[in-house]
């Protein structure tokens, strides 16, 4: 391994090294601690300018109650779930189908198609803003969950197709030859061979997609207007305007918004990292 490992025979050096890493980590996460500490404070404490000292009184509960009763964060939170969960599921289904065809079937234009998926996926999303907004207005979908779901599914299908295509292309060729020799149709191959084998890829992909879609802010402000459909990221940004100096409440709301992706990440960390690095590192 590189860098050279500190040997087990030098426990003190190992301990010292770990301590150094944790100090660097503490600096790295300082902004997060600041928000956590502030979420514990009372408004008087914030007003008195106690930003970095220990809170004079623990008021986390009070701040959370304020977030839930005096703001619409709970509504926004549900909206985010209503947008994120079906979008993720749809992308998984569509990209398994497209990824399978691109990985296992040769046809004219396949490379061009693949390149288009990559290029579309890397484009700054602002490039699509005007036409997509216009499209949703003319379909009567502007300011509905449908607008956000359709856009997210279309956009993420590009990335997800890439991902699934690479995974399915790396599956052992013999399986497919055997299936073909037995006269299995492409549909049967997909259902009986591909789907059971791509489960790890789907797990990795689903957590990535969930995080991407949950954290979206741009489309939330471009395609929605009313509180009834606004997701939690747009809600948080609004809150900053309305609660300008109540940093204790804003901080509590910030933590609340971050909970789902952070929890998902810690539950499925292995998949998350595998997902992000798949394709990047081919040995």
């Amino acid at each position, binding site marked *: *391994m*590189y860098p050279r*490992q*500190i040997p087990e025979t030098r426990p003190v050096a*190992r301990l010292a090294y*770990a301590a150094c*890493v*944790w100090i*660097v980590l503490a600096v790295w*996460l300082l*902004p997060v601690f600041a*928000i956590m500490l502030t979420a514990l404070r009372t408004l008087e404490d914030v007003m008195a300018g106690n*930003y*970095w000292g220990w809170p004079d009184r623990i008021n986390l509960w009070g701040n959370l109650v304020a977030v839930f009763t005096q703001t619409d964060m709970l509504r926004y939170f549900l909206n985010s779930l209503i947008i994120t969960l079906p979008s993720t599921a749809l992308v998984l289904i569509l990209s398994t189908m*497209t990824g*399978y065809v691109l990985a296992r*079937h040769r*046809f004219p234009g396949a490379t061009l198609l693949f*390149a*288009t998926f*990559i290029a579309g996926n890397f*484009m*700054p*999303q*602002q*490039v*699509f*803003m*005007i*036409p*997509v907004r216009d499209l949703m207005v003319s379909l009567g979908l502007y300011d509905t969950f449908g607008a956000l779901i*359709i*856009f997210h*599914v*279309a*956009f993420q*299908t*590009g990335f997800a*197709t890439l991902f699934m295509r690479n995974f399915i292309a790396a599956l052992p060729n013999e399986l497919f030859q055997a299936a073909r020799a037995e006269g299995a149709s*492409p*549909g049967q191959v997909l259902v009986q061979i591909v789907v059971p084998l791509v489960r790890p890829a789907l797990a990795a992909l689903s957590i990535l997609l969930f995080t991407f879609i949950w*954290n*979206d*802010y*741009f489309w939330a*402000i471009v395609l929605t207007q009313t509180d009834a459909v606004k997701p939690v990221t747009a809600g*948080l*940004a609004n809150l*900053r305007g309305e609660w300008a100096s109540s940093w204790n409440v*804003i901080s509590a709301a*910030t933590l609340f918004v*971050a909970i789902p*992706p*952070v929890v998902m*990440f810690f539950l499925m*960390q292995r998949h998350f*990292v595998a997902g992000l690095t798949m394709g*990047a*590192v*081919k040995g």
Partner: protein
Amino acid sequence: MLRTRRSLRHRATPALLLAPGLLLFLVVIVFSALRTFWISLHAWDGFGPMTWVGLSNYAELWGDPQFWVSLRNNVIWLAVFLLAPPMGLAIALLVNQKIRTMRLAKSLFFMPLVLSTVTVGVIFVWFYDPSYGLLALLFHAFGASPPAVLSSDTWVTFAVVFAALWPQVAFCMILFLAGLNTLDEEIIGAGRVDNARGWQMLRHIVLPQLRQVAFIALAISMIGALRSFDIIAVMTSGGPFGSSTNLAYQMYQESLFSYRFGYGAALATVLFAIMMVFIVWYLLRLLRDERSA
């Protein structure tokens, strides 16, 4: 008869499987990108009919000081984001030890990447607060008076970019950690036998093996720099006085606040063109690697 029906089915199924995802992608994404270019040749308020104006939106861009501010800021974003891969590599090297608690430390280092950009923006507005923020405390500690970075037209873009760099470094670190785990042990061992150490070892033995990963980390950082929008919207709304806009943000403002969709589309097209340079570079390399593999 049976044979033709079967072969038809074998040909038709892939097309049917491809169709839904592909159609959605072509209609919503590809068609929209092309239509942006078409709209940029018109004057349009977003509701009424479009009026053909040819290239005059682009001519206006050339003389628009705000456009040059945005373009300059895009260059700053790109330049500062070049720091993400080396910083990510540095942290990856730091935590790549098999010591207890190191696994947990790694996951905590990833954390900024999982937070939404809105969250990161809010956290850093707090961090930069000129009266009580952490930055202000640091300045006070050295006896200096803290600058209000977010209301200074000189510093505001740097302040925003450094906030955005935080999750980007975490991303690069994940990539490099994965890369470090695929290093060829024999070559490393041979290097150690030859007494290669520290910097020499990194430069001549480790980095060449990380080329693929470094390339991806760089490409993803450049793309991330060009598509930055959320954090500008949250931290500064392009201000003060438009000094922290980039092309993406200016385009959003011109379209949705000034109802100049044609002009906004022209800005988007410029952004598209800049991005295309990076994407073509990326694709060519990717296809070359794929062929040689």
